[in-house]
């Protein structure tokens, strides 16, 4: 029983923290997004979850950042409100390494909310006028340093994804539940072949059935999330394809089970098919990434995430969520097994 309690506790924990913990400050966009060298430019930064107007001990600092060695600090700026910051930059007369265009990342450092970054915020072009030979000293006068880190628990901010990053704790665990349940189903299919008692078959089929349920949920939630971040619900992503194929295998498994009149024969052949199909699914993990690009993080077919996609605060919610949902999956499967056991007994008594 303890694991059922644990699953409830972990899911509640992941729901509460997953929904309540705030996002880090971020920059949504900069306007205008282009500038010419040697000009004074007035750039507005639109922030998300930012506190530009909140008074703080130290000053807010703003940079446009080209690379490690080259960054421009804002000459002056003012906060219009909490989410809009207007900064004036004196663009240098030439670009580093004699380039014609440079994409500058915006960095806004707030003492309390920490530093936030917008990649390729401003495109800086070389003006066709006179080009000085020596690099403008503005590039190196104010290097980016002493950045603040937001104290406390918060989730990373990403453009386009925004708050829906929280779906990591609800959509992704579905995939893990599917994997564990289908794995358990295969294990019990092997057990059934070695020891053909009805209990092993009951377990194999119940795990497959609940795995199917969670697979469908993972696919549906993925489609909802994809609609509002990737723009369309289905984009032939490898993970979508893999899940779809796994679901097809288990649909075929149930059709196979039901196409025999004798129970024992159906159970045995279904177990054989279960093992065979699951094993042939494994190579797909290696093959498909070579053919289809993935939109999912950890793009090369890696089921886990890269360190960029999942920071430590997210891990503290993500892993408990996986354990919690997996236990819930096994709980539901257990109910299904107990029902089947009862059903078989009643049928035995009635003849």
């Amino acid at each position, binding site marked *: 029983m303890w694991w059922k309690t644990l699953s409830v506790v972990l899911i509640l924990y992941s*729901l509460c923290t997953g929904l309540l913990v705030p*996002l880090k400050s971020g920059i949504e966009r900069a306007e205008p997004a282009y500038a010419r060298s040697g000009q004074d430019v007035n750039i507005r930064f639109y922030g998300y979850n930012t506190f530009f107007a909140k008074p703080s001990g130290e000053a807010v600092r703003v940079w446009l950042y080209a690379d490690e060695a080259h960054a421009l600090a804002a000459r002056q700026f003012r906060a219009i409100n909490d989410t809009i910051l207007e900064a004036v930059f004196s663009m240098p007369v030439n670009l580093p390494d004699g380039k014609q265009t440079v994409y500058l990342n915006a960095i806004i450092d707030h003492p309390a909310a920490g530093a936030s970054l917008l990649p390729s915020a401003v495109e800086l072009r070389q003006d066709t006028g006179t080009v000085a030979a020596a690099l403008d000293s503005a590039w190196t006068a104010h290097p980016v340093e002493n950045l603040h880190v937001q104290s406390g628990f918060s989730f990373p901010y990403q453009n386009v994804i925004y708050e*829906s990053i929280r779906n990591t704790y609800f959509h992704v665990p579905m995939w893990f539940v599917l994997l564990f349940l289908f794995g358990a189903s295969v294990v019990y299919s092997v057990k059934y072949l070695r020891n053909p008692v009805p209990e092993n078959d009951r377990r194999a089929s119940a795990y497959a059935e609940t795995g199917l349920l969670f697979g469908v949920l993972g696919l549906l939630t993925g489609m909802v999330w994809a609609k*509002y971040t990737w723009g369309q619900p289905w984009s032939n992503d490898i993970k979508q394809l893999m899940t779809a194929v796994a679901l097809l295998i288990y649909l075929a498994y149930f059709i196979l089970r039901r196409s025999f009149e004798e129970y024992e024969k159906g159970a045995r052949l279904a177990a054989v098919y279960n093992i065979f199909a699951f094993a042939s699914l494994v190579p797909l993990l290696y093959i498909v990434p070579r053919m289809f690009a993935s939109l999912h993080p950890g793009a090369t077919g890696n089921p886990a995430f890269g360190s960029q996609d999942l920071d430590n605060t997210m891990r503290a919610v993500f892993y408990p969520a996986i354990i919690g949902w997996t236990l*819930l999956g096994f709980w*539901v499967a257990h109910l299904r097994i107990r*029902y089947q056991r009862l059903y078989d007994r*009643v049928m035995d008594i009635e003849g």
Partner: protein
Amino acid sequence: MRKIFIIILFLAISLPAVWAEGNRDYMRETGKINVVVAVILVIFLGIVWYLVRLERKLTKLEHQIHDAHERKN
């Protein structure tokens, strides 16, 4: 039970469409938080749907056991 469930499902599917009416993009505003709500809703409804189905099967089984008892007595 079944009717209630169908109504809930219908509402869950149609409400976002109603909200999307007009110029407001309900799913994309306020930092796309409603996408999270929709995802949680889908998972919840899916699991509840499965449990309702299981319960109906159990009810059927209970009736069967009940009938068998009646016949015996």
